[in-house]
């Protein structure tokens, strides 16, 4: 037996609300068919099915007539509340000691590092500080492929710190393009105080 919900002539959000109610009332494995007359409702019902992890099928049955079918194999539990990670900086410190990520071919290492810093900029919780030392100093200076990502993070309060000795050694001091200069004492203190340290 299948349950049919007639939502013809109903605009969003009504078809979704009717389908949700019908899903909650289903006691046994069953098929739920919802009839709607607009494309937006079809897409919205498919999303509802996806959020409840139900297989879904949609077909056009005529002019402004669609049928959306969901296969329900077990009673649908209400979706768990999505817990959002607080969008704040944690006590994470990233320590970048090279312009390459990992050991191996230099071209690959550089590409990996660019990808890594971009991925860090997209983490739900940004690091508190990113330290750059040794050839990592190249990444904060003019010509680096990661400047956009680093400036994006700096604008949101991430401390970008580059080792001064390293900038001097590689003759980069004039070209520092993001963040500020730090020293070994501050680097040691930052690492010691960190909750977590990532070293790519």
């Amino acid at each position: 037996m299948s349950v049919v919900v007639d939502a013809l002539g109903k605009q969003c959000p009504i078809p979704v609300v009717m389908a949700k109610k019908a899903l909650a009332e289903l006691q046994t494995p069953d098929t739920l068919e919802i009839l709607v007359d607009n494309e937006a409702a079809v897409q919205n019902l498919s999303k509802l099915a996806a959020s409840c992890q139900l297989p879904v099928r949609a077909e056009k049955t005529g002019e402004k007539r669609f049928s959306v079918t969901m296969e329900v194999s077990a009673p649908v539990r209400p979706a768990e509340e999505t817990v959002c990670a607080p969008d704040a900086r944690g006590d994470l410190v990233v320590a970048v000691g090279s312009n390459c990520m990992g050991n191996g071919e230099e071209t690959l290492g550089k590409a990996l590092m660019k990808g890594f810093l971009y991925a860090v900029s997209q983490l739900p919780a940004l690091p508190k500080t990113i330290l750059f030392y040794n050839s990592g100093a190249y990444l904060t200076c003019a010509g680096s492929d990661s400047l956009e990502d680093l400036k994006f993070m700096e604008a949101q309060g991430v401390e970008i710190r580059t080792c001064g000795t390293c900038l001097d050694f590689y003759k980069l001091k004039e070209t520092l393009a993001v963040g500020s200069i730090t020293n070994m004492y501050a680097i040691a203190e930052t690492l010691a105080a960190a909750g977590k340290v990532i070293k790519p």
Partner: protein
Amino acid sequence: MGFDTSDDACVYRITDEIAAIHTVDFFTPIVDDPFWFGQIAAANALSDVYAMGGRPAVAMNLLCVPGCLSQETIRKILEGGHQKAVEAGCVIAGGHTIQDDEPKYGLCVTGYVHPDKALRNVGARPGDALVLTKPLGTGVLTTAAKADLLEPEQYDRLVRSMARLNAHAAEAVSQCPEIHACTDVTGFGLLGHADEMARGSGVTIRLYSRRLPLLPGALEFAEMGIIPAGAYRNLDYVKPRLTVAESVQQARVDLISDPQTSGGLLVALPMEDAGALLAALRERDPDSAIIGAVVAQTEHTLEIV
């Protein structure tokens, strides 16, 4: 200004020092409470002046009411509008009312700006940061509210966000040394307004889907499929110029497409200045965030990553 790039309002130069900004907006009730509706409609209409870098000065009420609407309800709508106008330092000098089957309210607003300081919705440059000053999700949440699905706090955050003037955000923006482009996010959604900005500026805009400020509940309802039809229209319109990274959650694309009522300002400015702008914004608009970056033009005008 010209008509080519869909600016937010008309700007008319009166003298070398003064240009007048004219704009009008009105719509049907978006929430049941008439006082909130009046405030939201007024904040929404005033917003176009702020988006152009101006200050509102004089406004006229536009009101459509069915015969059955009580005097008390009409008074509350107008009081809501009046309260926002006062807050904006703008005088409501009169207006016009007609009878109509469905109530509608809004304002016709005149504001002023120095002609050299008028902000445009184009001019974004590669290397710019994109800042958004209000959270997204008003279309999804007002749709959910129609079905009584919102928790009281969710509803409260929604109406307060829509009723908040963009005045403080505009003030913070005006303090920036350099603003390349500015608009307000309304019916075309973040997607549509960013698309206009990118196309008019000859650049590509990259939106960081995980950095979007969202109203409480917006993501959950979008996942559930409580999405207004306008969001699909916005997405269809921009689709030929859009690329979405595989890892992006569908619900976030839907919220980027979600039509906004009285949305925030969308500002393109040099990345170096974005931190200072955010700090200034967050006192009054705590949800402000850097939501994207401007890059050199690619084959797409918009990238969602």
